[in-house]
């Protein structure tokens, strides 16, 4: 499997470290229900059969966290984007 890194181009998946679900967002710790929302954030994951958004870390490359859209059935990579757009990047 190869992942098109926005910086480095198509690179072998072995260069990346996998984290997982990129659809979850760290909740507001000040919210009254923070304990519940954090529990969901840390532990609860969907396991979709089909397109999924995931965090991959280009450990052996540019050291950027990349949001990868991947089809879990075919391992087809549908798209990638950087977690943090470079400063001055209009897009």
């Amino acid at each position, binding site marked *: *499997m*190869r992942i098109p890194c926005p910086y480095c181009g198509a690179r072998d*998946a072995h260069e990346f*470290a996998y*984290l997982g679900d990129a659809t979850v967002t*760290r909740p507001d*710790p*000040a919210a009254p229900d*923070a*304990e519940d929302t*954090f*529990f969901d*954030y*840390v*532990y609860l994951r969907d396991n979709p059969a089909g397109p999924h958004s995931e*965090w991959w*870390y280009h*450990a052996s490359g540019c*050291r*950027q*966290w990349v949001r990868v859209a991947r089809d879990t059935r*075919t*391992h*087809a*990579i549908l798209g990638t984007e*950087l*977690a*943090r*757009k470079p400063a001055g990047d209009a897009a």
Partner: protein
Amino acid sequence: MSRLAKGGLVDRARALSFSFDGKRYSGLAGDTLASALLANDVKLVGRSFKYHRPRGIVSAGPEEPNALVELRAGARREPNTRATVVELHDGLIAASQNRWPSLGFDLLSVNGLVAPFLGAGFYYKTFMWPASFWEKLYEPVIRRAAGLGRAADGNDPDEYEKANAFCDVLVIGAGPAGLMAAREAARAGARVILADEDFLPGGRLNAESHTVGDEAGHAFAARLAAELASNPKVRIMTRTTVFGVYDGGTYGALERVSDHLAEPAPFAPRQRLWRIVAKRAVLAAGATERPIVFGGNDRPGVMAAGAVQAYANRFGVAAGKNLAVFANNDEAWRAAFDAAQAGIAVSAIVDVRETISPALTAEAERRDIRVIAGGQVIGTRGKTLSGIEVRHGGTTEALAIDTLAVSGGWSPNVHLTCHHGGKPIWNADIAAFVPGATPPGLSVAGAARGHFSLSGALRDGVQAGTAAASDLGFATATPEIPIADDAEPAIAAFWHVADSKGPAFVDPQNDVTAKDVGIAFKEGFRSVELLKRYTTLGMATDQGKTSNVTGLAIMAELTGAGISETGTTIFRPPYTPVAIGALAGHHRGKDFRPTRPTPTHEWAAEQGAVFVETGLWLRAQYFPRPGEADWLTTVNREVSAVRASVGLIDVSTFGKIDLQGPDVGAFLDRVYINGFSALAVGKARYGVMLREDGMVMDDGTTARLAPEHYVMTTTTANAAKVYQHLEFCLQVLWPELDVAIASVSEQWAQIALAGPRSRDVLARVVDDSVDVSNEALPYMGAIIGTVMGGIPARLFRLSFSGELGYEIAVPARHGETLARALMAAGAEFGITPYGTEALGVMRIEKGHVSGNELSGQTTARDLGLGRMASTKKDYVGRTMAGRPGLTDPERPTFVGFKPVDGTSRLRAGAHFLKVGAPADTANDEGYMTSVCYSPTLQHWIGLGLLKRGPERIGERVRAYDPVRGGDIEVEVCAPGFVDPDGEKLRG
């Protein structure tokens, strides 16, 4: 000798000597071991797996189920190699397998007499009980009786490599379809890799006698291969099996670089594992001939018709002197004609079909070959084949022959098309499974797609190559399709001769018979997947290449469900066996992973250090001196020397992370449980960071070197993990923070100096401009300066040992010089190098947590660090650390231990029990995490996690260690055994 007087693609001028079972023979360059054995009239080559039945060569290719041999000797011995694909070389040593005492006379062939008991489901039925019989009786007996080759005697002396390749179009198989596909793709300008498992490109063009245009098939193949080889954009990889299809157009391939040599050339690997990334691929893997199943069909001399043809045409070898053919299709007739043309006597063609094409019967008549239409072979005789019994027209007849060429039709090699879950589709017209859905980017051409004629394969190959190139945007011209002299062969599906005599083998390698399939049917194991597992059909090293389709077809006959509905089992990689050595490549032994020496490695080695692997790092564990009886003596000396005067240790292995930017303070506040934004320039602070689930991830110190410049240390083990976590926090959680980080672990060497005289030593290595007095560099101070005459340095006043201590960081290349300078400067104080053991002893004496306590299952509170946690800010893990389960006062908490008797040895891993409580899980109160002998206190001490530990100081508990027979009473104490108030390190 059965070498034909002429013909074949072997080099008759180059004789090669080889041995089989100790006897010397001669073959020719271009032979396989199988063709050379047949040329020497060796027909019995092995014994079968279960019944030890005599077996001979069946095929001429990778599908071979019978002719498995051991190759080479000693450490290079390789079991279970297929003689049909072993390229002959001078001096080759081969031996038959699974026979005792000899191949000709095998005592264990009595297994055949008890065959009724060894049938389908034998293992499941026989060895149900008693369980104790399994290890003692059943398994050893089965191991001896049933088996394959022996593993090598020693470590493999050869090298294996891994390599990557990239291309536009990968063509798998260099037969007619593959050659044409490669040619068309290359003509269009694509970068092409053409891989073939054989050492000679051409596939069946070399085995058959067709002409292409006005050229002999093999000459056409050679010319095409030469044309491709001269194209710089084409790479022809012979002896290379593409064994698997993986994600993203990635193909696994095994190149047998040196298997055709007695030993690899210097610096050459035996095999090379390729990862080929191809934008498009054309599978032109050809087809495999199937047998017809009938009684006695495993006798040596019963062969595949296409193999008899290959031995005659390609190798110039007569597989026998007197041949009959038993078939259900037209292709086998051509094999008979080729054999006759080569001078082999052909007694009869027995075809199960009543109606045969007049062209074929006319040709048979012209060659004076008897045709038995509507006939079936119902029995065989001879240790090696001496005759067959044929049933036709209501009568039976015996024929005296020594070779029976059998063909039940051809099965396309669809294997690779199934590696992404594609299911083959039954095509009744050609009685074969053809590819269903293929992996993305892979198309199929030629016989692999069911186009069995040469003209069909050529046409199909041209089209597939053109399509692949044009799909990638290459301009393709109108292709020219070579003309071959044949048409699609006719076939009538036929699998199994009912009412034949003797065991009728479906899978000869695993000794599975048609009767076994019947038993599976009767007992309800009717799905192909159950049939496979119950009978072991297709589970041998050949993975059922010749037997799967026949087996499921027989099952389909029994169930009446039809072959299409019955379906195939799932084909998974690898297509043919791949040695573990090839998969490992260079990553074995000490090369399994890299070794990271520290910057002071050379110096430590000179000092006589004993090294220890910690992760990838090689660190000095202790520095023994002459006369020291054991490591404990050494470590005790090192600890005492540090506590009395001064010592030094390389701590470069700690992770070091440089953080810069206006928001570093705010960032550190969010990743550490304690506050950092108020840290002054020139100061360092100990910090603890959690995972988001509330457990401690790591600890270390972070120093502020300048208003917007910090440097963090992590534990050695977690350096990479913490760095990745920080990048995640910065890029994903808080991209708005203006912070940049970089790992500088390898850029800085860091040496810790510890002991009451450490300041004196430090003062002698720093440059005059640097003040290291207690006022200028107080405890937890961090300053930038120069040492040893202008070398930039970072000086930290930190202590892991509890003594006055410093850490000096210099650019890594100066690390060794620094160590030598410190040794020279400290000589008058008796400065002592110490290793990780003494470091560990001193941290236990001081009561610091370390890797044993940072187990991923401990909270900051568990480790006695809860009071560090800020309540005024959010940080990673804060919310989850507040869960009731993690704040339960009953949780085991960090304390120290000492033996009540003052002398007993403590053991890490011992569990704590109340004195007098039964030793069971219900009474478990925690466990000992770290122990050492303290030379300072002159007895063993320990650290551990005990329920409500800090409330139980002074209480006695039982340290129970059943694994090592330990059961002693220990006293709970505060974790700081040495200088609990920290007076030394602040002095």
